[in-house]
């Protein structure tokens, strides 16, 4: 077998240099200072300001783009499309299919295009969060596809994906009971960090996180109906801390609501034909 003698190949197992960087960065104390790295406060409902736009992608029925700090996501909605008849249950209501992917350059380390189990899990959570909000009984025998692509991951990706997806669904004209908004929180012993960045989400694992109440929580919420459509937490928390965290996330969702509504009305106005006066 011909051997390539012209190139000097590196070792088979290669690691990103950022892994070695993190060891020194972890020594920097994540102590209980009042200000977070980007100037927001701990222990207060201080979500990052959001930039949203609808209707960017001409081929899709509906689309939306969201930017919160450095987290950037784009979502497209296709449908309602005809579905091959699989079983009886689909005759009465439509089906929602979600797919969430990370671009390989979105995280600190290069990811792959093949969908990993993390992405499958996030897609499933996205589906469960969106399903209660969409009037699927109005679209029998059809399927609605929602595709979310994360362009840059700087924390609370699932929460913003839920918000982005529900905006794209509204932009596509799919009938919904209410917008679904997402908010996430990182609990750190006594205080919480709402809408954490990537470093805040992951850096705490390296710090001496023994003791109680270190964890993260993501909530998907329908504001006008006051219903929680998605809830996910990990780490370890006491029950009252968890309850407090859910309430805080609900507050965060209420803060986002007017911004999202405004963006949607602007998009609708832009799409509507100019009135003849």
């Amino acid at each position, binding site marked *: 077998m011909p051997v390539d003698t012209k190139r000097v190949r590196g070792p088979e197992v290669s690691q990103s240099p950022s892994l070695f960087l993190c060891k020194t960065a972890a020594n920097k104390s994540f102590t209980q200072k009042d200000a977070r790295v980007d100037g927001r406060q701990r222990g207060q409902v201080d979500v990052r300001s959001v930039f949203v736009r609808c209707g960017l992608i001409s081929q899709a029925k509906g689309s939306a783009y969201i930017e919160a700090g450095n987290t950037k996501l784009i979502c497209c909605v296709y449908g309602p499309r005809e579905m091959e008849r699989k079983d009886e249950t689909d005759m009465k209501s439509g089906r929602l299919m979600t797919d969430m992917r990370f671009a390989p350059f979105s995280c600190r380390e290069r990811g792959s295009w093949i969908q990993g189990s993390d992405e499958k899990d996030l897609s499933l959570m996205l589906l469960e969060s969106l399903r209660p909000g969409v009037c699927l009984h109005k679209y029998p025998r059809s399927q609605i596809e929602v595709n979310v692509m994360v362009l840059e991951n700087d924390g609370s990706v699932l929460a913003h994906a839920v918000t982005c997806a529900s905006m794209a669904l509204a932009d596509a004209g799919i009938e919904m009971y209410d917008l679904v908004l997402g908010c996430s929180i990182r609990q750190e012993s006594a205080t919480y960090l709402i809408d954490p960045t990537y470093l805040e989400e992951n850096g705490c694992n390296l710090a001496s996180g023994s003791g109680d109440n270190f964890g993260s929580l993501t909530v998907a919420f329908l504001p006008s109906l006051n*219903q929680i459509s998605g809830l996910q937490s*990990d780490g370890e928390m006491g029950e009252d801390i*968890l309850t407090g965290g859910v309430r805080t996330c609900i507050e965060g969702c209420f803060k986002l609501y007017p911004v999202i509504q405004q963006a949607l009305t602007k998009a609708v106005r832009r799409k509507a034909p100019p009135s003849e006066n």
Partner: protein
Amino acid sequence: MATVQVSEAEKVYILHGVRDDLRVDGRGCEDYRHMEIETDVVSNTDGSAKVSLGHTDVLVGVKAEIGKPRPMVPHEGYLEFFVDCSANATPEFEGRGGDELGVELSNTLYKVFNNRSSIDLKSLCISPGEHCWVLYVDVLLLQCDGNLFDAISVAIKAALFNTKIPKVHLSENEEGGKEIELSDDPYDCMRLNVENVPCIVTLCKVGYRHVVDATLQEKACSVASLIISVTHKGTITCVRKVGGGSLDPESIFETTETGKRVGKALHAPLMELLQKEENLGKKRPKVGFLG
């Protein structure tokens, strides 16, 4: 998940019963079905357990292998979970049908164990940065009758309790490299402390109340369930809402409280039972798969 067709009249019957704290098989809303646990059923593993909860059968095998620790945490070993939905369980799992459910279950297990106190990962370290114990926890679903998460988590706790990891020592060989030596005595092994391993409680919302350990019929009447994983101290390590419906925040708070209470109460009798079984030693009657 295996589904069952339930007629509207049956749904109403189940809903009315649950409202009055009486389920179809006579249990209360917070009662589990009859559970049978047996450890050390598979001799090729380092630890194994089989749990039957009603008609749900789960078999867990734990194998310990020596591997390289993760780059970010060189002083710790780790656990790998894999859930296989066997085609024996229901015909829906034939071929690749069970993969989706298996992935969902494995991902939830990773979240449940994703904290510092469930398992002492530092005790799995052999040589920092070079060698560590990796525990491969493989779950096999033999029969599916609802409430998979609970059965799986109890089986994992029992299997980890039963796990015997051989003791190793590091020695230097002639060239100065490190060599790992296994001790000659097959009974010289390290056991894991499973006090803090959480147990999962699944609560299905049926009507206005929530039920623990729902059967397939009850699951067909509910739109949403909450999965809560609780340690023996009452700390919650993972909460997840599954299903296509939405829940009221107040209902979630109530459900979390119930889940915490039920989960906490599950640990003490379980540990007692496991200790008793262990103490029986060779005199233990083996039931295996035919009992």
